[in-house]
Every structure is written in C-alpha cells, then in structure tokens.
C-alpha cells in the first residue's frame, strides 16, 4: 500500500486483525483523496499521514449516560468510516516557493512574513515534507491587508482554511469543543476540520485575536495546547476526550491591531510580524494590481483601460488598502451604471460618488 495506516498498538491486537483494518484504512484514504479530487494516489504526490489511532473498542460509559453513549457511537462510526489518514497539503517544492515568492509583489508590506514562510518552505523541502505548523501573528493598523494576506496564502498553498472571527467568539468551545457532560456537546472547529475534513495541515486564520471577548470564559484557552508542538500532537477535544488527535501539523495565522492586548504566554507561541501600511509607491502598485484583479473578476478587461489613470492612482495612494479596495469596487460599479469609459476616481480623496452617510444629519 502506498500509505501506512495507523495500527492499533494495544496488546490484544493481532496481526490478522490488522489485515482487515489495514485494508479499511487504505479504502478510507482513497475516499479522502477522492473528496479532494486527487484520486490517482500514485501520481498526485500528496502524502497522507495518520492523525489519530482508531480505538479498538468504544469506551464503556455509565448506563445512565445515554447521550454520551449515542454521541460516542456516532463519532466512533465516523472515525472508522473516514479512517485516520489525512492528506498533507502544500508539499514543499521549488514551484511552491515560487508561488509564495509572488506574495512579495502582491503584498509588498508583508515581505518579512513572506521571507519567514519561504524559510519554512525551504526547511520543509529539506525534510521532503509539507508546510506544517506555521504559527504566525500579523499585527498592525487596521486596513493594511492582514486578513487578505492570510487568505491569499491559503489559496496559494491550496489548503483548506477556516477563518475564525475571534471578536465574536464567546466561549472556549468554539476551538476546543464543549464539555461532554452537556447533552448538546459538540467538537470544536479544530477537531472538525481535521477529523471530518480531508487535510492534516489546514490553515486556521484567527482574525482580530486581540479583540477576543473574555466575559464568557476564555475563547483562546484551547490555543495554549494547540499552538505547542508536543501538546498539539495529542490534542483532546473536550467533547471527544477519548480520542487524542494530532493537530500539530495545522497552520495558524492570527491577526491583531494591538498586540499588547494578547497574553504574553500566547504571544510567545507565535512568530510575530509587525505589518506597516504600504509606502506610497507600494500602494500605487498594489492598487493597480487590485484594479486588474477586479477587471478580471468581472470580465471587463476589454471594457476599461488596463492601467489606472494618474488621478486615480494619486487618489488611491492616500488611502489604506481596505479603503482603496472599497473605492475601486464602488467606482467600477458606478462606471458601469453610468456607461463611463474610466473609473470615476478623482484626486479629492475618493470616488466621485460621495460616501453615503447613515444616521441623523
């Protein structure tokens, strides 16, 4: 077999029992591959790794714990059906490095973070493995493109991603699951993403981690374990405490405006990068790229000039990336509605369409 399924190491496992389990694991990994569209496991080159050991038997629970027992049964069926093998995406390679390197052009103000990721890619290439276990904290003023960078990176790496808005997170259950004694207990996002999905190294984006509310418990509590290599390798979701899952390969990117509001113990688990707003010349290049992307997205390359006008460039160069994106989109919509040949962005700070004010005047 091209993958080695996880075998049970308990004393009562015999080699003959493993024959059936091995084949079941192999078939489960075929199913996982087929879900991602890379069914030809010989040629895809994507490795698979084991993220948990399938328990031999369902654990015994007290007779009165019917809810727990039923939930255990469902989870036990799920893990047997899907098996323990998950894909290891973002295989390190020269092509991968080239793709990451393109971030220098598209996100010029993230060059130190890009260099760091390129370094990690090189280390992964040395070990003939994939980009795993990135723990990056991007902090800087609002609107400099932190979330966009994280999402663009996820797309480049072709990894499944999960964006978690920490500012609206209310409890630790979101990441680490809820305690199993609750009748409606369920696993957290990390467990679901790895066990129920296809990859061992998905990308989690923790957006605005510094704005995590703490009045309903600690939504970040599980991160102390998830971001530590050794403890992440045996992460137990509170809802499924009997199944340690290897979450150490997951990639994490957090964004924050004010890094001082993050607990030092948590900060120390990340590699931090302060992101400055792009310089004027960087922003001019960036807005031109954003404009090209917009034209391509709406198939308008033949309708509008490929280059932004000087006035528009000058106006956009005074904005944040987020503002510039917003103004470009609004101006494009307006140009289409008014049948103009150019985007109505003038030198007065933003689109010729004045920003609508909402509320009492």
């Amino acid at each position, binding site marked *: 077999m*091209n993958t080695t399924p996880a075998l049970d190491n308990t004393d009562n496992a015999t080699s003959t*029992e493993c024959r*059936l389990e091995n084949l*079941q694991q192999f*078939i489960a990994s*075929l199913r996982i591959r*087929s879900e991602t569209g890379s*069914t030809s496991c010989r040629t895809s080159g994507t490795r698979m790794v084991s993220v948990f050991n399938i328990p031999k038997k369902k654990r015994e629970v007290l007779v009165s714990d019917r809810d727990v027992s039923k939930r255990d049964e469902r989870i036990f069926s799920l893990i047997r059906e899907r098996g323990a093998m998950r894909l290891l995406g973002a295989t390190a390679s020269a092509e991968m490095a080239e793709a990451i390197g393109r971030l220098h052009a598209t996100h010029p103000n993230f060059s130190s973070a890009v260099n760091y990721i390129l370094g990690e890619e090189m280390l992964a290439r040395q070990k003939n493995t994939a980009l795993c276990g990135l723990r990056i904290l991007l902090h800087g003023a609002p609107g400099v493109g932190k979330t966009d960078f994280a999402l663009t990176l996820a797309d480049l790496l072709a990894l499944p991603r999960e964006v978690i808005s920490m500012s609206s997170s209310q409890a630790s259950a979101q990441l680490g699951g809820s305690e199993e004694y609750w009748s409606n207990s369920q696993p957290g996002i990390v467990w679901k993403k790895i066990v129920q999905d296809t990859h061992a190294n998905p990308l989690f984006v923790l957006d605005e981690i510094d704005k995590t509310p703490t009045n309903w418990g600690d939504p970040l509590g599980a991160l102390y374990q998830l971001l530590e290599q050794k403890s992440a390798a045996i992460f137990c979701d509170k809802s499924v405490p009997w199944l340690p899952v290897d979450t150490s390969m997951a990639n994490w990117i957090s964004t924050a405006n004010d890094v001082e509001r993050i607990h030092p113990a948590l900060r120390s688990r990340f590699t931090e990068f302060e992101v400055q707003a792009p310089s004027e010349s960087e922003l001019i290049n960036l807005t031109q790229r954003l404009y090209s992307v917009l034209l391509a997205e709406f198939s308008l390359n033949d309708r509008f000039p490929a280059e932004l006008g000087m006035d528009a460039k000058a106006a956009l160069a005074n904005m944040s990336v987020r503002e510039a994106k917003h103004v470009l989109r609004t101006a494009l919509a307006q140009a289409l509605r008014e049948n103009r040949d150019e985007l109505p962005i003038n030198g007065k700070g933003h689109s010729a369409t004045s920003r609508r004010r909402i509320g009492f005047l």
Partner: protein
Amino acid sequence: MNKFGRFKQTNFRDWQLRDPQLLDILARQQQQLWQLARVANKDDAVVVEACQALDAELLHYACQRLRAGLDVAASDDCAQLIAQSVLDASNQEDAVEHWQKWLSAAAYWPDLASKQWCRSLEKSAALVIEQLESDGIEVNQATAEEIEAAIKVFELKDLLPPDLYASFFPMQATEEAES
C-alpha cells in the same frame, strides 16, 4: 438482504437440506446410486426390475447440480460478506451479525465457506472495486491490484471475532491455538 442484494443461501432453505450432514449425505447418495446401477445386472429379478426403473445418471446429475449450487451460493454469499466487512468499516457489528446468521443457517455452511474460500476472495475483490467505483472513487490498475492483493490473504479468522470463529470452526481454532 444485505447491501449487495439477497444471499443465495436463501434458495437452499427446504427442509430436505437441513440435515447437518448434507454434504456427506450427498456424497454417499451418489455412491449408492452407482452401486444400485451395478446391482441391476445381477440375477434377482425384483431388484433388477427396481433398479432398471431407476435413472441413476439423472439422479447422479441432480445430486451433482445440487452440490454445485451449494458451492456457488457459498462463494457468492461469502464474497458479499467479505466485501461488507471491508467496506462497511463504520458498522462492523452489522457485518459480524450477517456472518453469524449466514454461518448458522445450517451446519454445513461453515464447511462450504472454508472449501469455497479462495473463490470467495476473488469474487469479493471484484465486488469491492466495483462498489468503490460506483461511489465515484477512481480505482486505477495499481490501486485495484493492491486491493486484490490485500483481500487475497484474508482468512476467515480475520473477519470474525475470535469467539465466533472458534464456535464455527472449532478444529481450526484449536489447531491454530496449539501451533
């Protein structure tokens, strides 16, 4: 009914076939038929008359067809049961229950399962691959060969819990325990 269809074993549920020694009986009956045919050449007029009325060849053929039918039913059903054990990883209890029901339908079925095991394995590999393809999984030649090779080495004890195996195959279980 299992996920692949009806077990062929159900075609052999008539009371005449419930004797636990059916396979031995069939073999003995065939021998008897040949002996009777030989007796028909002797001098006893009554015996000669009775035996001449007996179409030994036809009866022999009927016994043979019955035995062949049992063999095919055993190999087809076991192939389905093996495929279920392999494919339905999330519900091994059901697979074991099906095995238990099938093996306990009459005392000679475990014996037939053992005798038809190799043929069952071949058929089950084809069933597994067919099922995977119908689930939308691309099974290329290399993968198919791996599945076939993995199934080819299965033994009955790989698919049954030890106590169940020992209850249906006590001789083999004892021999394996001793070795």
